[in-house]
């Protein structure tokens, strides 16, 4: 990809309210994942690995950690002359200003950023999905099809299709029908919320949509149906790898557990499309004389003196003597003190489980236990 052929607009303003305590004080894209990453690493790494060096990150909800984490984009090699990461929060103009109301509105409010960069194509991304994708390949498909808009799609199980935006396409991949969360889906191709627009068409369409009083200013709900009705050339880009939207506690927990086991569905060890992160420099993990670890990802700075099974310990997590951690995720700095038991739980950043306290339950009919960031769980509190 040449430098300004394509720029990315990364939607990272969502609250992620269904992640509950994990997003009580940070935005969803900034939530830690996989031991040393944060969720936004995946989209930013995809950009860098695909040769896209200009990325606008649209932020809104609790942005401090997210902003400081992204910084100049240096950790993803995005701090280039003629490119770079721009953090785009809502702003005021002479005629006032508003919060971002919907995905399309967020981009509309930043049309100036797109116009300043003057690209041929605009890639729209979500900052809360886990996958590896070569956007350069998607763009090549877009150009080959002479498309106006290309939507990345993946087949989903038929029984889950009604949870997604579902597309029907002809043999050439041209989209003939789009239905947002259909009750009776006639296709199982789900939109991944990843779009490549011809920039001119995007600008024009968003300007029109902004004036439409009846629009919710949403890409899936409004923009795509309108372009389809207008007879524009909409094509699919089929993706068949690992892709997850970790929108809920249970999907966050499940997706984390998917990184474990002998042949994980998502291989974070692959080096040809590396996931980059703005990690802090901490010493290697230390396992004590009585530490027992079985099937776990353990990040730098961790100390394990107890038992860890089928779990993920993020940077600087601590498991004390006689403590047990099973089927759980410890976010950075989480502390499980001596003799404590943690089962099927997610412990927030810098949270503490006091000595001999139990958190979570082996009973899989119960919800995954979640301890918020900085929360201390003492005796009789759980």
């Amino acid at each position, binding site marked *: 990809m040449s430098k300004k052929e394509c720029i990315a607009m990364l939607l990272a303003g969502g609250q992620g309210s269904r992640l509950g305590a994990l997003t009580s004080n940070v935005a969803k894209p900034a939530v830690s994942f996989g031991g040393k990453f944060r969720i936004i690493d995946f989209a930013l790494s995809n950009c860098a690995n695909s040769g896209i060096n200009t990325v606008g990150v649209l932020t809104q909800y609790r942005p401090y950690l997210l902003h400081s984490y992204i910084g100049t984009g240096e950790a993803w090699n995005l701090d280039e002359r003629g490119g770079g990461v721009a953090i785009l929060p809502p702003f005021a103009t002479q005629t006032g200003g508003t919060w971002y109301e919907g995905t399309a509105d967020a981009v509309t409010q930043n049309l100036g950023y797109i116009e300043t960069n003057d690209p041929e194509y605009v890639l729209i991304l979500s900052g809360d999905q886990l996958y590896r994708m070569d956007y350069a390949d998607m763009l090549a498909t877009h150009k080959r099809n002479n498309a106006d808009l290309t939507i990345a799609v993946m087949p989903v199980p038929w029984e889950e299709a009604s949870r997604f935006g579902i597309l029907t396409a002809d043999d050439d991949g041209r989209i003939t029908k789009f239905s947002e969360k259909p009750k009776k889906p006639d296709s199982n191709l789900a939109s991944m919320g990843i779009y490549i627009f011809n920039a001119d068409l995007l600008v024009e369409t968003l300007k029109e949509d902004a004036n439409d009083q009846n629009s919710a200013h949403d890409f899936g709900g409004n923009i795509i149906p309108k372009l389809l009705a207008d007879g524009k050339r909409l094509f699919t880009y089929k993706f068949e790898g690992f892709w997850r939207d970790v929108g809920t506690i249970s999907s966050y927990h499940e997706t984390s557990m998917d990184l474990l086991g002998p042949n994980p569905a998502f291989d974070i060890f692959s080096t040809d499309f590396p996931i980059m992160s703005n990690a802090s420099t901490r010493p290697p993990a230390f396992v004590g004389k009585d530490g027992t670890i079985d099937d776990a990802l*353990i990040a730098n700075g961790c100390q394990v003196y107890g038992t860890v099974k089928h779990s993920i310990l993020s940077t600087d997590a601590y498991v004390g003597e006689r403590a047990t951690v099973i089927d759980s995720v410890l976010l950075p700095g989480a502390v499980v003190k001596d003799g404590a038991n943690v089962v099927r739980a997610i412990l927030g950043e810098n949270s503490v489980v006091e000595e001999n306290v139990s958190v979570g339950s082996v009973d899989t009919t119960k919800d995954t236990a979640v301890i918020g960031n900085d929360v201390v769980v003492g005796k009789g509190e759980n």
Partner: protein
Amino acid sequence: MEKVIGLITCNYSAKESSALTESRPVASLPYFGRYRLVDFALSNLVNCGIRTVGMVMPYNYRSIIDHTGSGKDWDLDRKNGGLFILPGSAFGTSRTGARFLLRDLIHNKAYFKRSNADAVICSTANFVFNIDLDEVYAAHKESGADITVLTKTASEKDNDVTAFDVIDGRVQGVRQGVNFGDTMFLDCFVINRQLLLDMFDWYAPTDYLDLFEAMAGDFGRVDVRTYDFGGYVAPIFNKRTYFRANMDLLDPRITAELFPVDRSIKTKTHDTPPAKFEVGSRVLNSAVSSGDRIYGSVSDAILGRNVIVEAGATVRNSIVMQGCVVKSGARVENAIVDRGNVVPAGTELRGTPEEVLITEKAHE
């Protein structure tokens, strides 16, 4: 600390050579899995706010530059100041004593002259410790000394460490080699910049000497005082002290002291995922770096990044450096396996606790 600049002499080669230092200078010796020895000198300087650091290079500097790059990971990629790569003696300074070879300093006079700093903090890359140099500099200013040297009471004999004869905190003499109870020099000192420039003139005729050797007859007029450091210190001049200084870090108290979050030791960052402890692995009393994949047994060991220990393989009381693969059924015991080596299935690499076996770096 705007008014202080740093200098690290990285061209001291180990006198007692081993396979580890044939392929690289001591400054870039891997340490505790993910670090290099020079990280301590660099981090100590930048942690007290110094943003101008010169590094005197040995002839085989590739691995040092590979590690430091622009100095970004130490915040030394500055518009003003930052990291200066300075040329050093062609063949290093393996001669006993000369850690701050005058010739190397004088050849880089411009680095000191162009600065407007009040003082220079000089260090080698052979010592492991984490110190608050702000306190040292404050003590230096308060005492009014010309030079303040970092010292510690020696706990054992070491022929490679420099000793000072000290009376009432003031250095009277210098000699090579320390015995138990001696005042050992931690190869780190604060000197007023103008005095250093003056000394270049004073000592130009004997520029083949170490700065402190040249000063030996001058301790009457040059006020050199000690600053006694109470923390953990490991001098690394040979494979025995290198091995022990690594193994010391299996004591979490020492690790906590050397790597506090608020005065961190910086190093080159990599995008390696967390270590994976696979089903059936067994790891005891060991340090495991990011990118490692462990299927077998590891005890009393330090593993560098991206090491694979296959099922049925055993690593005991050893250091296994970056990128090594210990194949199924292989056994590594009392050994240092340098980077990139594959220990073939079913084979043994075994030293004794007294005489650790060293395998040289894999050829690239």
